[in-house]
């Protein structure tokens, strides 16, 4: 065995990844070569040092509890193997998201769609409050709500808690608005429920305030996301909340 080959195989040998025949050959080489033997010893020490002294970060107990709680209690579509492969290739995933965003952008910019979306968002809000089915995931923790939604949508909606400002995060749900799945973040101010509909859209900066059937709605687009707020909260406070969600620079 040449020195080069021995050097090449040394890591695999120390890691126990060399087959029996090659191991024997390498051991013969080591026996007649003190420098190579020393190198082998140093590698073993390095490995032992990492194993004994590097931090092993065990998952916090709270994480396990949170996961058990958030592994879905709602039916999912049966995933296929092909879906797994697509996910394992981030490039393919990225392309898929870009395509969805593109289609959504085209749909969202068609004239007259705003009106339809406003109708559908309002209908969803009313259905949820009447049926008392406000959320699929009930939590005031943004780190629970966000991953729950992200895992079920082709995008990751921004989720933040504004309890310090009197707008408390209560949970989130999925809905279907404007021909697509959207995230709905549910906030509460006193007795008023505020639904925030979010989905990706490449819209120009718009800001609209609509009042309909006693409900107020705020619409704006920020950071590649389209937001619709629906609530029976008064117009001023809903406007304040919209500014919290989309601070004007």
């Amino acid at each position: 065995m040449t020195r080069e080959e021995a050097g090449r195989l040394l890591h695999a040998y120390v890691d126990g990844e060399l087959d029996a025949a090659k191991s024997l050959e390498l051991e013969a080489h080591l026996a007649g070569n003190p420098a190579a033997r020393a190198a082998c010893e140093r590698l073993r020490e390095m490995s032992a040092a990492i194993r004994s002294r590097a931090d092993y970060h065990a998952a916090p107990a709270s994480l396990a509890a949170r996961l058990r709680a958030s592994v879905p209690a709602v039916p999912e579509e049966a995933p296929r193997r092909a879906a797994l492969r697509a996910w394992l290739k981030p490039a393919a995933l990225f392309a898929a998201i870009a395509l969805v965003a593109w289609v959504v952008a085209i749909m969202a910019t068609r004239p007259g769609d705003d009106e339809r979306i406003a109708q559908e968002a309002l209908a969803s809000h009313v259905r949820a409050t009447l049926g008392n089915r406000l959320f699929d995931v009930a939590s005031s923790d943004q780190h629970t709500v966000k991953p729950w939604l992200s895992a079920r949508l082709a995008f990751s909606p921004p989720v933040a808690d504004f309890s310090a400002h009197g707008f408390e995060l209560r949970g989130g749900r999925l809905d279907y608005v404007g021909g697509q799945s959207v995230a709905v973040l549910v906030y509460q101010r006193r007795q008023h429920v505020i639904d925030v509909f979010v989905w990706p859209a490449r819209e120009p900066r718009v800001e609209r305030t609509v009042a309909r059937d006693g409900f107020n709605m705020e619409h704006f687009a920020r950071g590649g996301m389209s937001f619709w707020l629906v609530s029976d909260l008064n117009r001023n406070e809903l406007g304040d909340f919209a500014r919290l969600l989309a601070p004007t620079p």
Partner: protein
Amino acid sequence: MNEALSERKQRFEERVLPHLDAAFNLARWLTRNDHDAQDVVQEAVLRAYRFFDGLRGEARPWLLAIVRNSCLSWLQVNRPVELAGFDDRTVEPIEENSPETLALRQCDRRMLNEALAALSAQFREALILRELEDLSYKDIARITDVPLGTVMSRLARGRRLLAESLQAISNASQVHR
């Protein structure tokens, strides 16, 4: 909740959740931050649940592959600088001369952790999977989506870089004495 669904959830919890520590450890070493690691792991586990029917064979490397991809996507969005040069898949020659032992013997826990955390991500993940998770080259190749030869060269290069950086830390502390 219907029965098939709760059974699926139960099977998932039995097979996948025991590997939560491994998932968190990898995410913590790749993001280098507790809080971010929790977010990434939570997202990854929920994804794993969606693709659970695609699981064949061992659950741990399967879950770690999903966690690792979630980490990479997260880094791409939040800290793209750290991934510079990550996709270099060339197999580099393994140097025969390995490092001095002195620095290794003197280094304490803190120094070793710092030196490991300072390695670039592809060497760090290879060493964590090999030394802390005790995974085979084959599993590491599968998780990190590279050929076996690349796993081998990354481990070799990672160990050499780690030794050099420990040597540098040790030299620096000698000067201060």
